[in-house]
């Protein structure tokens, strides 16, 4: 459980506050309404094909890049089972793109 943040070092200049704010926003981005959405197929077919590993890889990459406007969601089986693991990316103004296998 995160949130035991009582060992915070002193901030001595405004840039440190700005940097900390960016990092903190990224950490709680799951609660915000994010512009970009990643949707991973985790129905029975998705799980069997290893969808969870794909989701973990996506989460690690988001953490590594410090992205703060991306939400990761899961969905059930969309019917294209032979192409699982499936990952959809939704960007505003664009049609939904599905990546298979």
């Amino acid at each position: 459980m995160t949130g035991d943040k009582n060992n915070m070092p002193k901030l001595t200049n405004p840039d440190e506050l700005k940097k900390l704010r960016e990092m903190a926003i990224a950490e709680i981005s799951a609660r915000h309404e994010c512009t970009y959405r990643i949707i991973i197929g985790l129905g029975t077919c998705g799980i069997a094909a290893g969808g969870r590993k794909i989701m973990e890889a996506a989460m690690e990459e988001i953490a590594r890049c410090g992205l703060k406007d991306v939400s990761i969601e899961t969905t059930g089986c969309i019917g294209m089972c032979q192409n699982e693991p499936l990952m959809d990316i939704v960007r505003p103004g664009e049609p939904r793109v599905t990546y298979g296998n």
Partner: protein
Amino acid sequence: MACFRSHVLVCGGTGCISGGSAQIIETLLKNIKANFLEKEIDVIQTGCHGMCEAGPIVVIYPEGTFYTHVNTEDAKEIVAEHLLKGRIVKRLLQKESLTAQMVPHYRDLPFYRKQVRIALRNCGYINPDSLDEYIAMDGYQAWLKL
């Protein structure tokens, strides 16, 4: 920095604590670990949501699902159904959510949609003990103006 795909916010206000929300957090953590979900799901204790008659309250993001009158058995079901399988536990939804066609996001619930919160804008949304979360919600920004 860790990225969690889902945040489970459990109300830690006085009403919900007396209704057993601390035990709910324990049960959630135990079941999340048992289902190997601890790298994906974060459990956070927040402040009071304001709807104390509906407690204990659990809100799940990014869906914004608003569960009310939750007990420890319900918490187990929330992990097994909602967190693991993505199936919303309808019987635990707040009653205004049930009448809508699609389960509304927390911010679209009639109770909260009509409120304009100023001093209490972060209540129920962040962990009040976390300075990081406060800073994410624009805490200490006045310092930059000095």
